[in-house]
């Protein structure tokens, strides 16, 4: 699969890798039984520290999305109900679209909406909460 990492974004690279694998599984781009490149190969391909790949893979294994087999790579295990997940994603997309529509009708610019969403992701309004970590 193809990864697009941004080293300067405010998100650790291992989370970016995790998110993209998760998304690929949810959308069916990567499916059960598929094999993702091993740690050495992927870290060379993305030119990032192997520790980043190890961390991403082992957390994904913990979530039940990957099965790591020593020496032969990372197998995608479809323990997550992909269908309902992608349905949920579509539903969320519709809700976001409705919200964005409403905010635009209220006169907020695209950039303002963008900033609001970003601020909310980095710092949820609930006081004292930690910086958002991906589920």
């Amino acid at each position, binding site marked *: 699969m193809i990864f697009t990492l941004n*080293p*300067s*974004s*405010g*998100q*650790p*690279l*291992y989370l970016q890798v995790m998110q993209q694998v998760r998304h690929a599984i949810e959308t069916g781009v990567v499916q059960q039984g598929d094999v993702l490149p091993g*740690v*050495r190969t992927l*870290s*060379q391909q993305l*030119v*990032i*520290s*192997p*520790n*980043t790949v190890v961390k991403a893979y082992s957390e994904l294994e913990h979530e039940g999305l990957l099965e790591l087999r020593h020496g032969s790579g990372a197998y995608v295990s479809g323990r997550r109900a992909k269908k309902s997940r992608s349905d949920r994603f579509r539903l969320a997309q519709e809700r976001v679209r409705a919200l964005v529509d409403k905010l635009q009708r209220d006169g907020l610019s695209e950039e303002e909406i963008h*900033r609001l969403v970003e*601020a909310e992701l*980095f*710092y949820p309004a609930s*006081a*004292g*909460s930690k*910086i958002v970590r991906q589920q």
Partner: protein
Amino acid sequence: MMESRVIETHDLTKRYRGFEAVSNLNLRVGAGRITGFLGRNGAGKSSTIKMLMGISRASSGSGTLLGRNIDDAAQSCESRRHVAYVAEDKQTYGYLTVAEMIAFTRSFYADWNVDMERRLLKQFELPPQRKVRVLSKGMRTKLALLLALARRSRLLILDEPSEGLDPVSIEELLQALVAAAADGTTVFFSSHQIAEVERVADQVCIIDRGSLVADTSLDQIRQEYRRITFGFSTVPPRVDFPGESIGVARTDGRQVTVMAARNAEAIIERGHRLGAASVETTPVSLRELFLAIVKEDSHDALV
């Protein structure tokens, strides 16, 4: 979890005729990671590495390399058997060909990795029959890297490895570094190229005017470091966030901006309490962090 350290220095100092190239440096480098040693030209990176490698003696202070004392000749020699070092000038014997240089180096190491040698020779497209003297700078770096990597060392130390290389060669260099790390080698490399450190390093140590001014993981920077800008509708109050911000808060008109190393939420909270009308939070890149630290006149370490 206690991680073992491959490099540790205590108040390491190098003086040249009254000029302190390295001053009271306390550096710690963990095993099993890629650590970038970042600093401006002349910040003391090479002087530090030369003392670690036993090439020059410390004026005062001490240090260990793989747990062995760097200023004890016998101990330093022992530790260096497990350390591969790529020096800044990548000096090799100019009159030998690439193949001869490799054969010559191979003869010193019983544990030489022939597969790695062949793979890198091919990957780096090094011409075996060409004299080392006429190799381009990029080729010479690649040869030095091949010689260092095929030794199966526990620790790889590189002094400005990407200096003078073109972008494609830098990419190949970084790929070789991450591959070495994947094989279990700890990597410590100095650089003044922020982008390459930001990309491949797990940890970054920033040295400025001979002293360590930051030691943090790249994950920590991405996750915790934030630039927060408050907007006030009146003259902004004098704000100070000791212990949480990097350097002083900067004020411009009715705006105050502060860089947080941690506890961004607490700083935002305080801003609100001081009556800020708007708050904006953005992530901090390594470049911004580096500039904020080394341009700061005060020398408070963040470590």
